[in-house]
């Protein structure tokens, strides 16, 4: 039998974690959404402007590639601080999960662009050529050929992004973003409550595991190759 003391302990722990958990989910969900909205078009442009592709434009390709690389080299913690003014402009504050979504989305977008790029590059050129030969337009090739054909790989890429953003969101917590990362630092690190730290890590592990499994399942389900 579990003693009532243990139950009380777990309940307390849960009460401590409940809000940060929802904050984390909220941050991860919207940051993923916005980073995909920003990163997907960039990834598509990276692919189609490449040499020999459907809209070759090497200059644009190079500039975009460089910008993405620069963005990806800036340490995330620096990026958050640099983006504070933008966050204030968009959501009116620099503190809390909603404010954290702004730098998280912007930081993850270049990553998403690269992930999407590598997925779309897997599409066999022959299939694209076949669709050009039946008179498909640029947008039709992108949305009816390239994206559906690389869907399994795109799903895995977005899964990767979700998990990555979860990691970033812990860092955002450190400077006032809230969420599980914030909890782990405040209670686990600053107050030496190791049990809270471990509980947070367990929750994060479960979260990563669930996301990865769902991603794998969906990817397999849409893969008819």
């Amino acid at each position, binding site marked *: 039998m579990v003693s009532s003391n243990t139950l009380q302990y777990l309940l307390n722990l849960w009460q401590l974690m409940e809000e940060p958990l929802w904050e984390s989910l909220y941050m991860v969900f919207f940051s993923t959404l916005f980073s995909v909205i920003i990163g997907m078009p960039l990834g598509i442009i990276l692919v189609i402007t490449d040499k020999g592709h459907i809209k070759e434009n090497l200059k644009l390709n190079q500039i975009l590639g460089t910008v993405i690389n620069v963005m990806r080299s800036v340490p995330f913690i620096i990026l958050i601080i640099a983006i504070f003014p933008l966050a204030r402009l968009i959501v009116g504050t620099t503190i809390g999960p909603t404010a954290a979504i702004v730098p998280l989305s912007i930081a993850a977008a270049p990553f998403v662009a690269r992930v999407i790029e590598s997925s779309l590059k897997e599409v066999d050129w*022959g299939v694209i050529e076949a*669709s050009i030969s*039946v008179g*498909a337009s640029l947008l039709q090739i992108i949305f009816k050929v390239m994206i*559906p*054909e690389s*869907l399994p790989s795109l799903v895995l890429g977005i899964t990767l992004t979700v998990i990555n953003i979860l990691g970033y969101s812990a860092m955002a917590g450190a400077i006032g973003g809230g969420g599980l990362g914030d909890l782990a630092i405040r209670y686990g690190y600053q107050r030496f409550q190791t049990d809270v730290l471990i509980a947070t890590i367990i929750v994060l592990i479960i979260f990563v595991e669930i996301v990865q499994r769902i991603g794998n399942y969906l990817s397999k389900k849409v893969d008819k190759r």
Partner: protein
Amino acid sequence: MIEIKNLSKVYSTNGKDVVALKDINLTISDGEIYGIMGLSGAGKSSLIRCINMLEKPTSGSILINGVEMTKLKPKELRNMRKKIGMIFQHFNLLMNSTVYENIAFPLKISKVNDSVIKKRVDELLDVVDLKDKKYAYPSQLSGGQKQRVGIARALANNPAIILSDEATSALDPTTTESILNLLKNINKQYGITIVVITHEMSVIRNLCDKVAVLEDGRIIEEGNVIDIFSNPSTETSKRFLKDMIAELPPDILLDDENPNEEILRLSFFGNSSNQPVISHMIKNFDVEVNIISGNIERVQNSQVGNLLIKISGKESSIKDAIKFLENNGLRIEVLKNGIV
């Protein structure tokens, strides 16, 4: 009608120019099955891709039913392409779409109404004999079945022309035959012009009416398939026909000293292959004949044959016999000691 005039294609990579096609002139009439034959690297792929502008020619013009392809605006070009179907060596199907969706794809691109698409795809599945695979994915099909899907897709928009880019090169001989028959039927039934590029001579022989032989980006020989097969005039054509031309087995050498023996290669085509010419020759001239090897191939609707014989007798009889053969429409080559 497809008219290709002074077509050239130059690729420049790293500042180096590579000439893929040089000054190509070709006219392909409506309803014809036109073969373009060449070794790999001869420029066949570039040539067929220039016809529907998958590759832009460097210079020259391509007229399809009087429309200058090289000067079309993007939208006009897309509409033009809808009337030119294309099939590929590796089928190039949408792997994440069903057979039905693959065949419907060109129609969806053309924004055809759904009920019309349904009817049309069912018709096409019938034409290519794949009714039971309607909802299968390409990965569940054999190579031949995949190519049938490719053909149905190419036919979807009722094209006037089909371009075939090595369509049977990845298939086994039996499957190749069935695909070639399908193409032949399509050509007959719908009067669709078919342009075929291939390195397989059997494809030309079984399918095409006319053929152009491409080498180093130029057309070195062109004409009716039967003419080229019976009398190739260039080295490349001969090399292609090597399998058909009987070679002298190296161990059958002629005694140098013996003037009363000769080894001949006889080529015959059309009617002469139906006549017992050799038998007549033996009866009418005092010669003996030893057949070393021979074969007969069907090319379109006639026959082309090759025979290697050793003929012995008096020198004058041999001469007369050869003259007799020539008068009967055979082509004679005298091989001495195995050297042409």
